[in-house]
């Protein structure tokens, strides 16, 4: 059963991620009173990128990009296998390190600046990510994903604060405005394309596929908050993921990019207030 989940994740996560990205672009366009591209546009983009010439700026960048993809796949596979949540989160941050290395391996100042901003973003969201693992342990008594989804009541009842905090920091991971400092999905930013500046053709395509894996992985963590031992909680989880995704898109469209200090401080404050208080209450009542 668990193996089926893993295989389904490895095969279909890029498809689901691509479709979600297409939906995101259409919803954004409609919010701006535009028609927007086709929902399959991300796949057209991938097809094109793979058919283009690869301008290799050095001989490690492509490899590092590939490692980013593979390590993300491992992190997601662990989550969908029902393994240790803490392990998944650690591997997730390791994957990000490879992206940072890929970006800082080239000589473009924009890519290097993107890499240092990406590092800063990690500093901003990492504390809360760890608190979430702790929260699940306090609420359900285990780090194992398979135990968490077998709990009698959904985890969201125990950790609403952590959920709100995770929604806040997920905008960083999804590269949504106002937190798209290191690279942006939208055209023209102050430092060209940030970390992806010197990635062309296939290298960028691999990075995009990795992002789709990451998107599905994050939605998987969101659904952990809702899934319990009953069957209908799965439906609730899927609906909740849809709502979370819509909320992130809406936030992306109504906010402007912030400075790095506001990013760091606001994330830490949210972590402290929403996450910290939630954990304290959990410790008292559990």
């Amino acid at each position, binding site marked *: 059963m668990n193996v089926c989940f893993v295989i389904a994740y490895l095969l279909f996560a890029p498809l689901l991620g691509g479709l979600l990205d297409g939906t995101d672009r259409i919803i954004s366009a409609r919010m701006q009173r*535009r028609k927007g591209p*086709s929902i399959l546009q991300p796949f057209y*983009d991938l*097809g094109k990128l793979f*058919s*283009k010439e690869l*301008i290799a700026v050095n001989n490690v960048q492509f490899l590092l990009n590939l490692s980013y993809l593979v390590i993300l796949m491992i992190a997601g596979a662990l989550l969908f296998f029902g393994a240790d949540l803490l392990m998944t989160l650690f591997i997730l941050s390791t994957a990000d390190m490879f992206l940072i290395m890929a970006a800082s391996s080239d000589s473009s100042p924009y890519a290097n600046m993107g890499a240092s901003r990406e590092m800063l973003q990690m500093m901003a969201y990492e504390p809360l990510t760890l608190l979430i693992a702790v929260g699940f342990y306090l609420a359900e008594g285990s780090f194992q994903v398979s135990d968490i989804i077998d709990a009698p009541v959904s985890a969201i009842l125990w950790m609403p604060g952590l959920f709100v905090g995770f929604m806040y920091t997920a905008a960083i991971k999804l590269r949504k405005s106002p937190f798209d400092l290191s690279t942006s999905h939208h055209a023209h930013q102050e430092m*060209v394309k940030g970390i992806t500046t010197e990635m062309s053709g296939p290298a960028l395509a691999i990075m995009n596929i990795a992002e789709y894996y990451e998107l599905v992985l994050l939605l998987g963590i969101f659904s952990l908050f809702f899934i319990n031992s009953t069957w209908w909680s799965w439906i609730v989880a899927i609906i909740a993921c849809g709502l979370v995704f819509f909320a992130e898109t809406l936030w992306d469209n109504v906010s402007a990019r912030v400075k790095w200090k506001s990013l760091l401080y606001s994330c830490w404050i949210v972590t402290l207030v929403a996450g910290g208080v939630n954990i304290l209450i959990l410790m008292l009542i559990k």
Partner: protein
Amino acid sequence: MNKVSKSPWLLHYDASSCNGCDIEVLDCLTPKYDIERFGIINTGDPFQADILLITGGVNSQTERVVKQLYSQMPEPKVVVAVGICACTGGIFKECYNIKGGIDTVIPVDVYVPGCAARPESIIDGVMKALKVLDEKQKAMKEDRR
């Protein structure tokens, strides 16, 4: 599926335009014209661009930049000259610093006339460029065989 014309990404560079044409290029992104419906993204990164859109004629300072941008774009790529300045030098042609149209430094595939070029004709020019792009991709594939 992997037709490059299904997802052409634009790079826009102002070689020495009076800004008239640039505003018309940006116009194409607004809700009224919305070029994103063709899958077009206005990127700022030559490494990721398929179409180089240049406004204004080339002068002695921008010549280097135009060549650099062109050489940084991965194949297949096309160049669209927007506005009469980019096509021939236009009203600035006789100026001491102007070299002339874009085709004096890099090969141009599509010329969009007008002063300023209207958004409709820019979109038209880009659509023409897409056909050229597909042909170039085909030629590239045959070369590989």
